[in-house]
């Protein structure tokens, strides 16, 4: 990424290289984006069908399962909403000067006027239109259109639920097929991620050139806007961490908020440095059990599930990023488009979170669903790594919070352990 930035800067200084970059380096970035788009529909379809079938099993098994799922979904929706409101207040995308924004708009959609018209049209429709639009009238037609992802999600969920209601022996071949299919798709995502460094490099380098032309100061303006964007994401996450989680803990448990953070600190730090909730999982479990006193029965169920499907930080980040890109491209999003972001991001998060590298695919899905050009993700690639670290930290705190809340409502917290070991 840094290389891409540097290379872009260099090219701005030497105009003769710009043409070369546009002709021979940009296609790599485009290929990368197209690869992500290509895999989006199969990924959502396969992993959601399998995901729903598995989750359905869990929630049927226990009351605790249903409760956990409900809390996960609620916290995810809260986090996206916080992300959307904070980005609407700060407006980091508007930190770019007007001229650059117009430039970007022309770059990514030659028919910007058409898009704006479309946005106008969307505004005049009722706020519940996204719900209506969620139901596909022809599933193959929906699947041919990346913008109709929500319809595919809807279809996949229905199929998943239907599979739960069909006798095991009848649906066994279908489940086996989708399991294999899902594994293959996840592997394909892995392959696409192999070219991610080159793709990102190409995207950033060509973006710099196309924005800045031969005026380096414009590039600095972009970096300045990115700084604001990062601050917005981090601000939103701080709200989650310092307001939402403490409130949840206060209202459902007797645990002291300060104790909670003290007890969880090692897991959070590890999450920050590895930026993987799965890698941190053993430590998280240990801290939650041994230091917060959550019974093993609850933690061993809630935490692994949370590590895969509960991603408060990630979904907040997606909300902010989508709006930031829209702002930078000068697109105004209506209330119903924002509602669409909430729906898509939540469902996509639940469905695909177990897939490494799915974050990017999910962001592409969200962008396409509301009609923002997916190539816009080039804008936010630069600070991606740091933000990834922060959002993993939030994901882990969220999982821990949910496990404590569930344990408290099930009366499964060992007060002794909490008192004795919380400060270790």
């Amino acid at each position: 990424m840094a290389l891409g930035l540097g290379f872009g800067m260099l090219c701005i200084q030497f105009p003769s290289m710009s043409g070369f970059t546009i002709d021979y380096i940009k296609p790599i970035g485009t290929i990368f984006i197209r690869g992500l788009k290509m895999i989006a529909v199969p990924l959502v379809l396969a992993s959601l069908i399998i995901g729903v079938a598995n989750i359905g099993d869990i929630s049927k098994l226990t009351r605790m399962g249903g409760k956990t799922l409900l809390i996960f979904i609620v916290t995810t929706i809260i986090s996206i909403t916080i992300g959307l409101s904070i980005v609407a207040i700060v407006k980091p995308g508007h930190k770019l000067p007007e001229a650059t924004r117009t430039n970007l708009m022309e770059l990514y959609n030659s028919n910007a006027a058409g898009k704006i018209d479309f946005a106008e049209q969307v505004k005049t429709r009722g706020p519940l239109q996204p719900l209506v639009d969620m139901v596909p009238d022809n599933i193959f037609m929906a699947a041919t259109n990346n913008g109709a992802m929500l319809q595919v999600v809807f279809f996949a969920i229905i199929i998943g639920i239907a599979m739960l209601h069909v006798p095991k022996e009848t649906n066994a071949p279908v489940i086996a097929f989708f399991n294999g299919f899902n594994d293959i798709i996840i592997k394909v995502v892995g392959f696409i991620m192999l070219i991610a460094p080159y793709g990102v490099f190409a995207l950033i380098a060509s973006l710099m050139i196309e924005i800045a032309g031969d005026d380096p100061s414009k590039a600095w303006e972009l970096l300045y806007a990115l700084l604001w964007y990062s601050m917005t994401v981090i601000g939103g996450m701080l709200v989650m961490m310092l307001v939402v989680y403490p409130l949840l803990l206060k209202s459902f448990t007797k645990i002291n908020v300060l104790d909670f953070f003290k007890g969880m600190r090692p897991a959070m730090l590890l999450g920050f440095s590895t930026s993987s909730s799965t890698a941190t999982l053993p430590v998280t479990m240990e801290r939650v059990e041994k230091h917060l006193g959550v019974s093993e029965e609850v933690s061993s169920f809630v935490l692994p599930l949370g590590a895969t499907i509960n991603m408060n930080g990630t979904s907040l980040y997606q909300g902010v990023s989508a709006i930031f890109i829209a702002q930078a491209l000068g697109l105004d999003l209506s209330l119903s488009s924002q509602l669409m972001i909430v729906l898509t991001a939540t469902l996509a998060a639940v469905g695909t979170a177990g897939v490494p590298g799915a974050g990017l695919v999910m962001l592409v899905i969200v962008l396409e669903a509301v009609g923002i050009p997916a190539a816009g993700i080039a804008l936010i690639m630069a600070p991606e790594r740091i933000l990834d670290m922060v959002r993993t930290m939030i994901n882990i705190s969220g999982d821990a919070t949910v496990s404590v809340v569930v344990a408290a409502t099930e009366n499964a917290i060992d007060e002794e352990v909490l008192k004795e070991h919380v400060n270790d």
Partner: protein
Amino acid sequence: MKKLPLHTKIVIGLVLGTIWAFASSYLGWNEFTIDWIDPFGTIFIRLLKFIAVPLVLFSIINGISGLSDVSSLGRLGAKTVSAYMITTFLAIGVGLLFVNVVKPGSHIDDTQRIKNRLSYEIWLQDNNMGLSQDGQSFLSDPEYSKYLTDAQAEREMSEEERHNLEDKMAKAEETKDSSPLKFVVDMVPENIILSISNNQLMLQVIFFAIFFGVTIVLLPKNTVAPVVAFVESVNSVFLKMVDIVMKAAPFFVFALLAGVVAKMADTPSEVFEIFLGLGSYSLTLLGGLFFVIFIMYPLILKLLVKGFSYKDFFKKMSPAQFLAFSTSSSAATLPVTMECVEKGLGVPKKISSFVLPIGATVNMDGTSLHQAVAVIFMAQLHFIDLTIGQQLTIVLTASLASIGAAAVPSAGLIMMIVVLQSVGLNPAWVAIIFPVDRFLDMCRTVTNVTGDATVATLIAKSEGELHTEN
């Protein structure tokens, strides 16, 4: 009738169709033929095309997932692409040779050619394109000034022609204005279901299928077993569908041919007139195409494959060739080509399922030969002398163009406009060869399909997996 082999039956259908067409135009039944017989030909092409996409998808996945070692795929891919490029260059070379020896464009009388030349130079002036390729100027030469008014008068085109042309020019414009790596970018699908739903995006389906197949090989057997089983059985279902459709092929071919000829002209004498006008051009092109099919390909195979039998090759390939001729679409012929190559020539499935779909989309020996012949014919017609160097530029552009042309009928004409523009000739000239293009397209497709089969055989041979016994 039952005992006859399929290709004989197809030939009978072909001949009967042509006879029917001539008879019906003689008797004034053309309307009946177009209304009641031609639709069956269209149905046939549609049947083959709808099978082509799923067949490509499933047979590539099936073929590749059967490989034990993915690294061999890279080698296979490199070989395939280079073999296709070499045969394409050879075909273009043949085309250049023929057109330079026969000089079909100089057979009309000189006055007409001078007039053509003058109107070309006027066109150049109108578009501020400077001097023509050979650096001469007939306009400034007083000797030719008496032809000038005639030349200007002839520049008027009919309204319909112009409309048709502008349409094609717009498409050509899009093709031209893109990054040289555009075709690589275009290979990556944005939405796989969308690619599947569009026959022109076949290359994207191939890309996805290869990717998917490779991934299957890299995953543990037990996880992917249900998917492999599913793909395999669906694939065999589609293969069976090809068999069933092919049973009725002779009848469909009859309908196709009857329709094609009937649409070309109202009376038999008109048909002959069309061919007479462009006779020398058509003959040159046909000569080139037949040379490539009947001499060049067998020669390559003879040299590289031991125990190659000339008669066997054509006997086994004839169903695909006749089909290519009557449908003039290598994509529609693909299912049959695959069957002929696998069962007839003994190329193993895992190679044919990889090489042939790629060939149907990127390898266009006949098309690029046609580009070379046609462009130079038009230059000759306009009294423009092209040096070998300029002809080579045309060759390069033409072969790149042939890669870009999708496997659909007549995409070649659009690419021809690109070629003409790139060498500073007037793209409106494609109108000259419009009338015979449909028929020549049929012959080009035969060359394309035979070329694909040849390359598939070569690749199988070089992998040591050719089983000629069956």
